[in-house]
């Protein structure tokens, strides 16, 4: 069994910022299968499509999610309380590489792209740095968790209210590292990937796409990738990703 459905009682709910909250659920069946960077498809009563949410933390029999309210589905999700149960399909996709042999890793996250990196950062055994970008001081999440995971944490904010005043790439430029894991808005991923490509450092990016099945059956979550020969094709975020080597992403996203 690679993935399955489990009806998961909510154990804890914590508000992290005005619009971001953390949910910990009991998932004795799914948690042992999960790896850092994989995701879940959470059912929202009344909605036809499940919502893809990254697995932010994996306990022996628990899973943790950090969710931002973006629309009706995540709004509904934000209203669950300990005692309620969630219908969860997980763990899905390929997470970050399990053993990264490099010495120094950097984890670059932007906004709601930060949570998926926490597991990978926790698992990494070398020297680790986190560069976490947010709109403002009020939007900062999980900084302490990354510190607790053994990372040196750099913050960057759009308005300069915490850490570096500017984009995460502004911080990244100043760092030395051997491998990079990144998750966040597309323009950020693209800039991080370019920077890593220039330095010839391997870079892993976690991508998003609108999904239906979440398991690779519907071909809904297409993303343009390069083949080794340089030609393009549509791979699928849910099955081939969500984590890809940055070098495989066709950032222009057009298949000829």
């Amino acid at each position: 069994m690679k993935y399955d459905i489990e009806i998961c009682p909510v154990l804890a709910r914590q508000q992290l910022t005005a619009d971001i909250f953390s949910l910990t659920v009991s998932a004795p069946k799914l948690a042992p299968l999960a790896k850092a960077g994989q995701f879940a498809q959470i059912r929202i009563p009344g909605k036809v499509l499940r919502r893809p949410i990254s697995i932010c933390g994996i306990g022996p029999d628990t899973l943790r999610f950090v969710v931002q309210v973006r629309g009706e589905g995540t709004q509904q999700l934000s209203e669950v309380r300990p005692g309620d149960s969630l219908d969860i399909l997980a763990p899905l996709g390929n997470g970050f590489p399990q053993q990264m042999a490099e010495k120094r890793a950097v984890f670059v996250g932007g906004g709601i792209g930060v949570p998926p990196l926490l597991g990978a950062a926790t698992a990494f055994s070398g020297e680790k740095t986190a560069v976490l970008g947010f709109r403002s001081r009020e939007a900062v999440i999980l900084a302490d968790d990354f510190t607790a995971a053994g990372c040196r944490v750099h913050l960057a904010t759009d308005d300069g209210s915490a850490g570096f005043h500017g984009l995460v790439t502004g911080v990244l430029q100043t760092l030395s590292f051997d491998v990079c894991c990144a998750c966040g808005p597309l323009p950020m991923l693209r800039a991080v990937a370019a920077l890593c490509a220039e330095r010839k450092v391997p870079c892993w990016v976690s991508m998003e796409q609108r999904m239906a099945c979440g398991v690779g059956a519907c071909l809904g979550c297409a993303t343009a990738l390069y083949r080794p020969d340089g030609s393009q094709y549509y791979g699928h975020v849910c099955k081939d990703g969500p984590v890809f080597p940055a070098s495989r992403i066709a950032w222009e996203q057009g298949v000829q």
Partner: protein
Amino acid sequence: MADMRVNIAGVPFANPLIGASGTVGFGREYAQFYPLSVLGGISCKGITLEERPGNPPPRIAETPSGILNSVGLQNPGVEHFLREDLPWLKQQGTVVIANIAGRTPEDYCDMAERLSDSIVDMIELNISCPNVKAGGVQFGVTCEGVENITAQVRKHCKKPLMVKLSPNVADISENAAAAEAAGADAVSLINTLTGMRIDIRTRRPVLHNNTGGLSGPAVFPVAVRMVWQTAHRVKIPVVGLGGISCWQDAVEMMLAGASAFQVGTAFFTDPYAPVKILKGLEEYLNNHSIANVTELTGGVRPW
């Protein structure tokens, strides 16, 4: 215990539930949840003569009680299907239906011929994909088009032939009659209704293809109506689909006139939906002392 078996166009199914084309791929992903032999059959992702890359993303949008998709027939081509997918799927103990789409009548005929020599159980002629110009929908709108393409494929097709009809027409039952006249062994309906959503923030259509195909519970009443009209018009079996999400829907679809039914979008909401539907259906039959599921077909009593 109720007998759940049905026979469509000479093909025996263990039960009337078929996974709908494009929603279950070639079966592998759902075989993680349960043996595919629990399903009466699987209609494979629509295949074309050559590999197709599909449409650019985004390909999926949500709508009230439904979804839009514009996958655009991404598929590895018929040869790859025959070589890589069919042998595995055929061993899973479920009826395998090849869903085929083409650019030209020759495409369809060529595929029908190759599949006729394969271990596929049945061919579903997809002349109703709304998401690609070359997806056959040009053959599916008018009666003449349906009759013409069906007749041509019929000549090359040694397998039972089911024609999948588009709901984006004035009278689907006439198209069903045209398919019947041209030699179809069964019809399946409905494919998706063409729809559109616009992101008011970006002012872009949510789907890169601008429009897409609507499926899911929202279309269920339209599908029931079309199946009802069609079942009155043709003598060949009607396979009903469109928005079935629970066993009650399945009963309703069969009462409307369906001899079997397909389940698509419901897989996305709940991968176990087909199992639950079959369980509910069987319990319903047992509770009502209905010996054969086939007795439901066309059982509605119109006013």
